[in-house]
């Protein structure tokens, strides 16, 4: 054996010439490794494939001319992008390659950005500098960011675009859910602009809860909020019977009364059994509150809580006081102060109390609480972080109760613990945490939500957009969200508007809801007399709407206070209310306007002007628009509706001055017949 080896040695390196020859051959071979690797590289293989594919196409010449061999790179130092993806994805910019079935050759779908200006990994993640499929797409040592599944792709839009975009419904929904379900009450989310994400769920204070409801209801609610209301945003904490017993005991014992939030009504409910239903309907409670109908469908809005089983929850005396004036119990509530008279309160209260589910509390039997139970309940209430969302007397809102999520979208996989069987990717981890938070470890406090799979995807998308890049991007490269203003009207009228909760539905100067029209320029747009009569007895201008302006039973003094304020303060600077007369147009001009209205512009497609013949349902009814709007507003609106209300769907028809004048004349002649019709509409 040894002898054999030594002869081999002899024959290879026996003399210096031989040795030199052998070493040279070895050296040459090793030199050839690199070019060979290059020759057999994947990108070369794909480029060959591409050239073969385009050969059979009619536009082969153009494609051939555009083709550049070798490794391609998009280099954007500002963004830290070094992307070589186009070495294999050769046809990304070729307009004609939309129909190619084999990847990686198809043209990139249309997006608002140029590939050469943004590269690939900014949106798709992955390792841009890599030149093999596996390294570019999959997680490797150097790179914690594998390609992002298409399901979550909108998260990348959210890194720079801080506000809602029309093309990213999933991201928008995810962000809405983060706020709406109070995720950000426990998890801090600091945004790059220095602000913190705010919740929109408005959970009630629990400091006076014993006035409102019973311990039994609290117990049942704590055990399963969705059993009371399917739409409840409160999650399920999976409490044991004993824990729910003790927490309910503490909340009742901790509650202090509020003067005037419970009353024994002097009046009796109406004897007419239908009176409650009709008062509920007339007051348009359903604009904000939903109730499950017999078929199990929810009917109504989601500004206020669902009322399907409200009779199980509220104490009658509290409900009466609440309906009389909700601000006594909760000064900041989104619910308007309706100014019902006692008989109306009694009727509505009886109607709501009848909304019960006999099963809900049937099995809840609680003994009187012991001091130990109450003390234990208090501990649980602070342990579970209830005060992160709810105000609770004697318990401070915990800071940083749950992990901060400001950069969750860049969390390294090595720092994550996965459930058995779960794919080891960040999106899978995040969605797994949302789906079954307690599965990750028995001691975790994060509660169980009842999200649909689509909602989980949306939330995951929104969370993935909170990452290193989104936090560190220079402000010049971001597109900020339009911030919600904190506009508050002043004086007596301002007080009245808070009392009526106008901002729960209407937006003014960038503050408020979007259920009802923006009132920022209301003073320029409507006639005073119309506004007075509308506030007294609102009808709807849009026959197809389910949500409507309720009647608040205002006094004459309140009505004129509000009207004066709106007419004087909510003025658009471009419009001079009195610059165009309200009446006195010639018959010829009116007739011309009529022809334009029904002919060239065919406004009747969306608006009802002659209630016998027109049927359009999209825009407001115009039957008596001449008594409602100012001519100056109408003219400017016809010329350019978006200049007055950005985003309105009324199309800008680029009307000539003459056409706009004639249609204004025609519309101003539509005064409506009687006052009564104004009210009914």
């Amino acid at each position: 054996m040894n002898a054999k080896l030594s002869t081999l040695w002899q024959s290879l390196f026996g003399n210096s010439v031989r040795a030199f020859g052998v070493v040279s051959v070895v050296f040459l071979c090793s030199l050839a490794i690199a070019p060979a690797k290059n020759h057999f590289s994947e990108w070369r293989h794909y480029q060959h494939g591409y050239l073969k594919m385009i050969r059979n196409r009619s536009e082969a010449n153009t494609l051939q001319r555009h083709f550049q061999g070798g490794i391609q790179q998009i280099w954007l130092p500002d963004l830290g992008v070094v992307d070589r993806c186009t070495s294999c994805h050769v046809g990304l910019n070729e307009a004609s390659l939309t129909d190619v079935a084999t990847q990686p050759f198809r043209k990139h779908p249309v997006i608002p950005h140029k590939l050469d200006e943004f590269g690939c990994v900014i949106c798709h993640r992955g390792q841009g500098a890599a030149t093999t499929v596996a390294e570019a797409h999959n997680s490797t040592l150097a790179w914690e960011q594998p390609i992002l599944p298409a399901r979550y792709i909108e998260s990348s839009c959210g890194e720079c675009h801080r506000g809602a975009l029309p093309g990213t419904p999933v991201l928008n929904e995810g962000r809405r859910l983060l706020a709406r379900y109070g995720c950000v009450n426990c998890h801090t989310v600091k945004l790059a602009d220095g602000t913190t994400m705010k919740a929109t769920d408005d959970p009630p204070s629990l400091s006076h809860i014993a006035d409102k409801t019973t311990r039994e209801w609290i117990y049942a609610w704590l055990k399963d909020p969705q059993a009371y209301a399917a739409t409840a945003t409160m999650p399920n904490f999976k409490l044991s019977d004993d824990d729910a017993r003790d927490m309910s005991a503490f909340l009742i014992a901790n509650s202090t009364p509020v003067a005037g939030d419970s009353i024994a009504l002097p009046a009796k409910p109406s004897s007419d059994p239908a009176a409650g239903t009709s008062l509920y309907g007339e007051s348009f409670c359903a604009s904000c509150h939903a109730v499950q109908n017999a078929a199990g469908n929810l009917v109504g809005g989601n500004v206020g809580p669902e009322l399907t089983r409200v009779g199980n929850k509220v104490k009658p005396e509290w409900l009466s006081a609440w309906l009389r004036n909700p601000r006594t119990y909760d000064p900041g509530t989104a619910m308007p102060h309706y100014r019902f008279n006692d008989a109306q309160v009694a009727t509505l209260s009886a109607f709501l109390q009848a909304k019960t589910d006999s099963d809900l509390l049937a099995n809840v039997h609680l003994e009187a609480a012991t001091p130990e139970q109450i003390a234990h309940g208090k501990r649980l209430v602070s342990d579970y972080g209830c005060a992160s969302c709810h105000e609770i007397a004697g318990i401070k809102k915990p800071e940083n109760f749950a992990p901060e999520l400001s950069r969750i979208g860049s969390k390294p996989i090595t720092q994550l613990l996965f459930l058995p069987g779960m794919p080891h990717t960040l999106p899978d981890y995040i969605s797994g945490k949302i789906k079954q938070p307690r599965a990750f470890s028995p001691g975790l406090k994060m509660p169980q939500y009842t999200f649909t799979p689509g909602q989980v995807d949306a939330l995951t998308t929104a969370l993935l957009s909170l990452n290193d890049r989104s936090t560190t991007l220079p402000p010049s490269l971001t597109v900020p969200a339009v911030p919600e203003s904190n506009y508050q009207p002043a004086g007596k009228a301002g007080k009245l508007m808070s009392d009526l909760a106008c901002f729960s539905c209407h937006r003014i100067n960038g503050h408020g809801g979007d259920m009802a029209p923006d009132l920022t320029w209301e003073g320029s747009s409507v006639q005073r007399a119309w506004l007075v009569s509308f506030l007294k007895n609102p009808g709807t201008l849009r026959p197809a709407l389910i949500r409507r302006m309720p009647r608040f039973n205002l006094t004459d003094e309140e009505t004129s206070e509000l009207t004066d304020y709106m007419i004087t303060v909510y003025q658009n600077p471009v419009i001079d209310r009195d610059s165009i007369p309200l009446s006195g147009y010639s018959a010829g001009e009116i007739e011309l306007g009529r022809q334009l209205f029904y002919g060239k512009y065919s406004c009747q497609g969306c608006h009802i002007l002659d209630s016998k013949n027109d049927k359009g349902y999209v825009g407001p009814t115009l039957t008596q628009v001449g008594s409602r709007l100012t001519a100056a507003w109408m003219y400017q609106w016809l010329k350019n509706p978006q200049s007055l209300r950005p985003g309105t769907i009324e199309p800008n028809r680029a009307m000539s001055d003459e056409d706009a004048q004639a249609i204004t004349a025609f519309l101003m002649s539509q005064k409506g017949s009687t006052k009564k019709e104004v009210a009914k509409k």
Partner: protein
Amino acid sequence: MTRSLFIFFTVFTASLCTSCSHKRDSALLPKPTALGAAIVESSGGKQTAQAGTLLPQPLVVQVNDEQGNGVSGALVQFAGAAGVTFDPPNGLSDSSGQVTTNVSVGGEAGRYQIVATTFDKSHKKIELKVEEIALGYQQTLGRTLADQYCQRCHNPESTAERVSNYDNLEIKPHAFTEGDTYNKISDTDLAAVISHGGPALNKSALMPAWGNTISKSDIQALISYIRSVSDPPSRDAGPLFAKN
């Protein structure tokens, strides 16, 4: 070095695991207790969703016997082109003969063919094919714009949030899915009628002009959306992703 070994090892075991789990999947198919004669769609075909995302409604198929009554206990398996996922990927039909699955379309825009299979009494495969539509970015934008500006008139169906205006129009527009109409209109003509209104194509002025309200690129997005949902499919509807 140890780290790279570790990573390699995890990737390796992970890939092993996934390949195993594929095998396990087929090994763990539920045992059918009945066989059907036909498989039909109950609901959930022809939906649209953004590429890579869940369809809004689940896909429900029904296994029937010779008389057209639902068969319970029949095994149905779902399959689609690469990227399409099913939750669950298979199941036994319930008491009314139905199997329900949540479908996510693939990550690229286009139409996806989904195949639901079951076996008949002679153990022959019977298949049901349904098509679902995946929208790319531009089409998604178009969908948002269409919902905002157009569907009230163009879609005869009302929802809780949007009462249709279709019935109120003297001259009826076409639903954007009506390929027989839209496939005959060129991109240029579509852009013209949207920008300048019905009269641009000798149609009714009840179709308003949107050219001063909706930007050119947004009008392109609307057209792209209309093309992607038309039925029969337009030539620009995007690739059809079928299994194999």
